[in-house]
């Protein structure tokens, strides 16, 4: 285990019945990194995230969060170290944005505790940080996909953690909202926050990552600097398509190439 790692995973195996999903995963995330988890559909990315959050249980292997084995951690303890930002979704009851954001504070309240002025201040500060304070009294269900994703990000900030796990954060967002969300992640990472995000877009991993981990068939097949890991061979072997890479300023861009 790396000394500075906030999450460390050691020889992790997981199967649904006899269907092997993860097969000996080893990796760690250091404080301040932005790690992109790449891989085709069904490679085990989302399963790995669920295991890290103890939403499901591994068959074997260990997951350490802030030097504590999560087998011995409660969900409350896990939520005090790492915040999960799911793909934006609809909820059956039409909560206001403020109510949604305040849900990040519930695990901090005692059994009979009610949210105090301090909790509301933290929620407003989180919305201000993400730039959605003007939406506070709007109904969550009536927001655009991009706004909903920003609300879930603000909710994560009310947990007062510095590590965030995002499951395909740009999924379902239009192009503008995708770029705005990536910009937000980039800005927050400059402030020292740690991110692990799964993505289907190699280009996005190149744009906003300090490290890329590539999974295929339940194994990690590559782990390192984005420019080293994401290359034509990797795109071809993992996704079965061809791509060109071009330099644009200080960034590299991945351009898919049609075979016909």
């Amino acid at each position, binding site marked *: 285990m790396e000394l500075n790692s906030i999450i460390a995973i050691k020889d992790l195996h997981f199967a649904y019945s006899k269907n092997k999903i993860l097969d000996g995963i080893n990796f760690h995330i250091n404080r301040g990194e932005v790690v992109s988890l790449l891989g085709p559909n069904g490679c085990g990315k989302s399963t790995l995230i669920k295991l890290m959050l103890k*939403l499901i249980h591994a068959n074997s292997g260990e997951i350490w969060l802030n030097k504590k084995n999560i087998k011995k951690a409660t969900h409350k303890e896990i*939520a005090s170290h790492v915040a999960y930002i*799911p793909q934006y979704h609809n909820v*059956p*009851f039409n909560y*206001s944005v403020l*109510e949604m954001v305040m849900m990040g504070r*519930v*695990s901090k309240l005692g059994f009979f505790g009610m*949210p105090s002025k301090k909790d509301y201040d933290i929620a407003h500060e989180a919305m201000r940080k993400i730039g959605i304070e003007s939406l506070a009294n709007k109904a969550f269900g009536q927001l655009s996909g991009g706004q909903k994703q920003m609300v879930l990000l603000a909710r994560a900030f009310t947990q007062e953690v510095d590590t965030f796990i995002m499951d395909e954060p740009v999924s379902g967002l239009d192009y503008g909202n995708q770029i705005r969300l990536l910009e937000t992640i980039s800005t927050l990472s400059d402030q020292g926050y740690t991110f692990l995000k799964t993505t289907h877009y190699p280009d996005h991993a190149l744009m906003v990552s300090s490290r890329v981990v590539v999974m295929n068939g339940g194994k990690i097949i590559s782990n390192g600097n984005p420019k080293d890991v994401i290359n034509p061979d990797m795109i071809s072997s993992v996704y079965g398509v061809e791509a060109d890479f071009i330099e644009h300023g200080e960034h590299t861009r991945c351009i898919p190439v049609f075979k016909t």
Partner: protein
Amino acid sequence: MKNFKALGIIGSALAVLIIITIVSLLWGQYPIDFSTFIGYLDFKLFGGVENDTYTLLDNIILQIRLPRILLAILIGASLAVSGASFQAMFVNPLVSPGILGVLAGASFGAALGMLISEQWYIVQALAFIFGFVAVGVAVLVGSMVTNSRSTIMLVLGGVISGSLFTALLSVVKYVADPYSTLPAIVYWLMGSLTMADLSGVLYVSIPMLLSIAGMIALSKYFDLLSLGDEEAKALGINVSLVRFCAIILATLASSLSVVMAGMIGWVGLIIPHIVRMAVGPSHKLLIPLSALVGAIFLLLADSISRLAFSVEIPIGILTSLIGIPIFIIVLKNARAAWN
């Protein structure tokens, strides 16, 4: 600021409940005027001047009207809070307190009690026991089908358990004496508050109020449960424990409702809808306010059943007759409160 607003709304609802309670105490086949009532209260509470009519008022108020009013308040609050809790837990605004079979189980228990005994406490005990047995069957079936504790399997378990105990109830009705026991069972199932006696009501009020208080304490967790299990866990709550506590508390409150007054439908479904439409979906306010509005609704329904017709209509029939048109009216607006 938000907390003050919520307290203001709850205080207003409580004031309405108190006013309707006083009006219900005074209004009836023997009307009591307000000044006589104040004099009676002064005599009872502060040892004021006695009046010849107070013996009669003792009988009317303490023995007849007060137990019935308290029972209506307790049952209305219990069913509304149970319904709101289950709606959050099953992430479905169309769920009612009977979702896990508690009402079917308790009804079967009561009918079985009437079949095998003439002792009223046996009828009540069996209603209570089989309310819990039915929920136990639902949870067991839900976990037998798969190891997952998903709410879908729990709902399926509830459907199976509810059907099982409804079928068993039919068996009891089929074998019951058609001239004595069967009519008793049928009238019981229509729901009635006429059997209320003060000591019995005070006795069940303790577990019912504790259940309601427990669900109010859990209310902040219900917001998270309504996002689905995975998100709730990731936000740091013990989903299994909260769900277990909510099922126990809602089952206790609902089965005691059947024990005291038979089947009273619709309260647990429509009251949370009306409250959600008025104050939004946040359970911190929805649960306590549902308790008060449920109590007001059932108290009004019982007053109508007592006073509006020459023959008293069973309360279960009336809540359905009132509840269905209200539900249709609120449905369009209520949809704005859930997606």
